[in-house]
């Protein structure tokens, strides 16, 4: 075993370079690639957001023309949801799930690589649409222009290929999500270390499980809807075409039946992260663990029965509107349970005020507002005024930026040392937090007022005199501040990587298994698969409780030091890790080629199918590592 370990470690060191990343099936590397890619898309979506805000900073502005504005807001929304928050969550699933459940990798490592490459391909494919509108240097954009929810029949009528790129792009991304959804469900059910019962799983693992189930049930719905849309657009089918008897509202039902579970796909991972960060930094276990788990399940379950709250004003009639109003009101109950338990986790703790905690508390603070505006939206008769105004824009950013992104940043600051071996700088981290927190509030809280003042969303301009000038100007200033905070974050990452402030295996006195192993973790994660005896197992390796319930350190408890490896005696067999493979990448490349062919020329489809088939066959026939 010693020999095997040494070989693995040496391999780990020599195993570098671009090729090793292209062929990796290591969940940690895939996680890092997910994270970096999602962050780059975040910059892209952020630049789009700043362009929109600059256009709206004053009345009758002409920085963007209406056509550009419509395309950019469509890409902004689509990017932030499908190319930023979802993959950033996936980055954490990848990085953490095997470590938290005491496994060496996910159940299907190559499928995992496939998910990433498909996601990357889908994201690039969709953004390629920018170049299809003529000369992009002259500002002729070809991106989709029907909004992130692409309402038919506007999305049928839209000229050019933007919507086709959008729809095929989403279909490709759906493949990636489905594959990773199944992968993590199987991983969590089958790969847990001995003793890791379901009710001992860290909350982040629970939320990943719930999210994965939502993904595998929600994605098929939008897949069907997108195929219908593409059939209408490309082949003259009549699903949504009212002139031939199609149903425009069918699209909305399909989209939101996917779309509402989708918003919980976006928020549950962040909730899981916050449920890990708060206990560590308050140095207390999560308050009411079973209730936090059950409320997560309840939210997921109820999320299937509220979709028509996005359609209150479509004329569904009093019965449907009442029913969906009531179900939407009730979904706030499990949401509230989570918030109260987080608060109780902080209560009575010994809170160390580090950057991850700031972001986690910022998350709660902003999510409270988002939850409240959600309830405000659920009241049907008054929501007839708020629907499709800036009030909705405020709500969705409170939950997605103030909520999901703050939670994800908490996770980045918390686990960065685990995967790089280095701490992020505290001072710059807190500066990042405060700039982002203040910028966020200056940007999005005024939008509630704009909504109440009657400003509809998705307008490229507004006349002088409507009373909206001041708040729009304020919001733009806030957006620039958020932009600055992101620059601070990027600076912090670069600085911290160079500063080389060694984190050690357990910098925060963590509670879960990932802190028991070296930072960064070796390729095989655990030298020996741990046996789990309690919830927060690693904490219980370090502390026992006296009669009053106060923790007392256990002598010799704590994380494995990398040096110990040399002395470890194994059972006489090495650790088998899956071998690298480039077939997932090849298979993934096939999909955007097929989509390109379906838009432009059927001959290209054959090329794409050939690539896909080569990839899949190579993958299937590839010799196993042993």
């Amino acid at each position, binding site marked *: 075993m010693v020999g095997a370990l040494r070989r693995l470690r040496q391999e780990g060191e020599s195993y570098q370079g671009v090729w090793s990343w292209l062929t990796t099936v290591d969940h940690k590397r895939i996680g890092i690639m997910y994270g970096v890619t999602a962050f780059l898309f975040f910059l892209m979506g952020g630049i789009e957001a700043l362009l929109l805000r600059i256009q709206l900073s004053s009345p009758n502005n002409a920085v963007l023309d209406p056509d550009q504005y419509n395309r950019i807001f469509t890409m902004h929304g689509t990017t932030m949801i499908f190319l930023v928050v979802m993959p950033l969550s996936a980055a954490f699933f990848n990085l953490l799930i095997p470590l938290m459940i005491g496994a060496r990798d996910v159940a299907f490592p190559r499928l995992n690589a496939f998910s990433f490459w498909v996601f990357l391909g889908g994201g690039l494919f969709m953004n390629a649409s920018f170049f299809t509108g003529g000369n992009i240097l002259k500002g002729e954009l070809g991106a989709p*222009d029907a909004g992130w929810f692409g309402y038919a029949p*506007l999305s049928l009528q839209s000229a050019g290929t933007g919507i086709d790129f959008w729809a095929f792009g989403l279909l490709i991304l759906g493949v990636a999500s489905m594959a990773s959804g199944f992968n993590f469900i199987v991983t969590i059910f089958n790969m847990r270390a001995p003793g890791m019962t379901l009710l001992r799983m860290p909350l982040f693992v629970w939320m990943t499980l719930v999210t994965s189930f939502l993904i595998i049930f929600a994605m098929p719905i939008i897949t069907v809807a997108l195929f219908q849309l593409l059939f209408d657009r490309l082949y003259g089918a009549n699903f949504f075409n009212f002139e031939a008897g199609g149903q425009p509202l069918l699209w909305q039902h399909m989209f939101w039946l996917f779309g509402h579970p989708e918003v919980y796909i976006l928020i549950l991972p962040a909730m899981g992260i916050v449920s890990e960060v708060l206990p560590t930094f308050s140095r207390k276990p999560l308050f009411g663990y079973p209730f936090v788990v059950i409320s997560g399940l309840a939210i997921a379950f109820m999320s299937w029965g509220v979709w028509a709250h996005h359609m209150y004003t479509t004329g569904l009639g009093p019965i449907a509107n009442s029913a969906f109003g009531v179900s939407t009101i009730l979904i706030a109950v499990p949401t509230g349970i989570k918030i109260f338990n987080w608060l109780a986790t902080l209560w009575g703790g010994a809170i160390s005020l580090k950057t991850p905690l700031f972001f986690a508390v910022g998350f709660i603070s902003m999510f409270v507002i988002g939850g409240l*505006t959600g309830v405000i939206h659920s009241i049907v008769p008054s929501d007839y005024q708020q629907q499709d105004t800036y009030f909705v824009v405020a709500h969705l950013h409170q939950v997605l930026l103030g909520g999901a992104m703050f939670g994800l940043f908490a996770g980045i600051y918390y686990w960065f040392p685990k995967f790089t071996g280095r701490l992020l700088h505290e001072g710059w981290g807190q500066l990042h937090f405060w700039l982002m927190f203040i910028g966020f509030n200056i940007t999005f809280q005024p939008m509630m007022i704009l909504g109440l003042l009657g400003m509809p969303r998705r307008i490229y301009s507004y006349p002088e005199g409507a009373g909206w000038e001041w708040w729009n100007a304020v919001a733009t200033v806030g957006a620039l501040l958020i932009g600055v905070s992101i620059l601070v974050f990027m600076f912090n990452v670069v600085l911290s990587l160079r500063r080389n402030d060694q984190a050690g295996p357990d910098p925060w006195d963590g509670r879960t298994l990932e802190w028991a192993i070296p930072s960064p973790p070796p390729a095989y994660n655990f030298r020996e698969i741990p046996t789990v005896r309690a919830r927060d197992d690693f904490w219980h390796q370090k502390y026992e409780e006296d009669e009053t319930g106060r923790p007392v350190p256990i002598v010799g408890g704590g994380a494995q030091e990398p040096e110990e490896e040399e002395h470890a005696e194994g059972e006489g067999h090495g650790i088998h890790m899956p071998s690298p493979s480039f077939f997932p990448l090849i298979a993934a490349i096939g999909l955007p080629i097929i989509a390109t062919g379906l838009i432009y020329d059927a001959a290209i489809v054959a090329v794409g199918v050939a690539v896909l088939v080569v990839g899949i066959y190579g993958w299937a026939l590839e010799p196993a590592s042993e």
Partner: protein
Amino acid sequence: MRRLVSVALLIALVGLLIGCAGADPDLDQNTFAPEGDVARMQRDILIVWVLGPAAVIFVVMQALLIYAVIRFRRKKGQELPRQVHGNNRLEYAWTIAPAILLLMLIVPTVAGVIELGRDAADDALRVRVVGQQFSWTFQYPDLTDAEGKPLTVFGLPGEVGKPSTGRPAELHIPVDREIGVTLESVDVIHSFWVPKLAGKLDVVPGRTNSMWFNATKIGSYSGQCAEFCGFQHADMRLIVVAESEEDFEAWVADQLEGGGAARSGAGEPALVSYGE
């Protein structure tokens, strides 16, 4: 910091009031300054049932959060805290109490939906509204000229891909009289919205939605399309002119003299079929 935010919110609320004072009356769309029964009811439900309680919950939750972080921050040399795992009584309390509060919201929700969803009164003035990229057409099926053609007001439809230049179509209505509108679209989904008079209702091709509203004060009220409908969505405006019964009658007579099709602005009319 969060306290600052709540102060900022207060200031913002004050600003809301200032904001409406500063707005041009022809462009004002402030939902907090309603001039119709529907919008008034919507504002009152919003403030009394949700915004008020939400403000209280907001302040309490943020205060608890700030208090917890400050009060329980780690002090030098502090021992590890007691490892409290939970408390079932508290859990039940904060499940049931919010549930009861939330269930109360069903009352205004259902009552409001039913009241707003009822058919227009029998004596309501009927108006047929047709949405089209990017203009509105209004037809009064009961106000016909000598040949039986109904009075119709055409907006100026824009051309897709070109900024629209026309003045928005005017919907003349008598004050204090219920208006029953039916909504139709000839192309994509639009949404009919005059914020100071009533919340919006979508204009969906292939189906006819209907709603009622009124204006309780003489004046002109700005409205605009609220569902993204493409290139010139931002310019798909309308103006509701609420006038006294006599003025309205005079306007109708004036329009009908020149034939059923009145025009506010030049250009090709929307694709409305005339009469029944």
